[in-house]
């Protein structure tokens, strides 16, 4: 029996919060590190706790990276959270010797010393006009690195901490969040609900 949502086990991530968020929305959840399952699942979440270097290398070695790349290129419903968003990008200052999947033409860099790092807490989110899933509001962030430049071909939500940074990106059925929707109260739950509303390869 296939679950509504498949969560990729990338290593040391705490998955309980993500699992609980989907279960509160009445969805069944499974956790896997099987690349074939990830490639073919209805909906996949790439969660985000850990350091960029080790996780990026592991994804490159075990085929999970290729499975995620296939999903994003084919516009299959996929959600990347926090570090997951950085993994979609080209690379990160957090692990210069490892490569991201290059699906977003952007690189993650550390917040400047002028602000508190890590950023821990709720920050305001503003959205491009043509966003379908993303809405303005406030979301919970827990990060030291962020993307700053608009990647071509994606709709973007923005936030501000030592300068403007990317709060989230969306394209078709693919959503990448720097914040944690699973920890962002009812605003986050509503966003997950809109992502869950995506149906397969047809742009909804």
């Amino acid at each position, binding site marked *: 029996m296939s679950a509504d949502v498949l969560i990729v086990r990338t290593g*040391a991530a*705490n998955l*309980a*919060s993500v699992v*609980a*968020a989907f*279960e*509160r929305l009445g969805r069944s959840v499974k956790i896997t590190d099987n690349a074939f399952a990830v490639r073919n699942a209805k909906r996949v979440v790439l969660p985000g*706790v*850990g*350091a960029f270097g080790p996780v990026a290398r592991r994804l490159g070695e075990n085929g999970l990276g290729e499975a995620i790349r296939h999903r994003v290129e084919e516009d299959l419903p996929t959600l990347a959270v926090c570090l997951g968003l950085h993994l979609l990008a080209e690379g990160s200052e957090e692990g210069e010797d490892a490569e991201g999947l290059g699906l977003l033409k952007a690189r993650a860099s550390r917040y400047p*010393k002028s*602000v*508190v*790092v*890590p*950023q*821990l*807490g*709720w*920050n*305001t989110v503003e959205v491009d006009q043509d966003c379908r899933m993303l809405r303005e509001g*406030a979301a*919970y*962030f*827990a*990060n*030291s690195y962020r993307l700053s430049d608009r990647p071509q071909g994606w709709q973007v939500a923005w936030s*501000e*901490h030592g300068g403007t940074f990317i709060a989230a990106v969306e394209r078709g059925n693919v959503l990448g969040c720097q914040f*944690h929707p*699973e*920890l*962002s*109260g*009812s605003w*986050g*739950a509503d966003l997950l609900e809109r992502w869950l509303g995506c149906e397969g390869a047809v742009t909804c």
Partner: protein
Amino acid sequence: MLMRRVIPCLDVHAGRVVKGIQFQALRDAGEPVELAKIYAQQGADELVLLDVSATPEGREHALATVRDVRRQLPLPLTVGGGVRMLEDATALLEAGADKVAVNTAAVSRPELLGEMASAFGCQCTVLALDAARAGNGWQVVVRSGRDRLELDVVEWAQAAVEEGAGEILLTSWDRDGTGSGYDLELLQAVCGAVGVPVIASGGAETAEHMAQALLAGADAVLAASILHDGHTTVSAIKRRLATLGMEVRL
């Protein structure tokens, strides 16, 4: 813009929320999951859950409580109390904590903070730091207030961040449970010395106290007794903080 946080704290003993004065004289303050739900509805920005039992049976209870709270709570959850080794932190994260706070064990073996930061990231690694006034400064207090160490609070805060702590939960042992306001000099000293977020704890009775702590440099304020006793609500506190000019999520 990053907003200031109001964080209810649940001290949990044998599956119940308790509250004491200066860590002593525990009394019952309710059921953790129910209180967590109420505070989430009131607009709490996150939740801290501290296991104050410090016994093996208490630890099992605490893991069960974390699982129950996690199922209901769409907010960040920090859990602390009795974390001795990396395995304790792992068990709490797997049960549903988003951050783990370490106190006594980090003083005994600071490398624990580094091990946690490498395994889970510094954003998961919280130093719980209890401080007592001593002369012109503050001494680190451990073992729930039983031991005062010859260790300067500001120096320890800096060393802990260097090791890997990504946030400091700073409790004034002198003010805890007294309702006389936070130790603002303590907050200024620690916030001025580290670049990571600091949560102010110990002594809050009013939203004005909380605004003072935020102006002193705290990123967040912790509150327990004033909420559990029903004197006020998270929403009332945040509305008042907003009128006092603080950036909060309403």
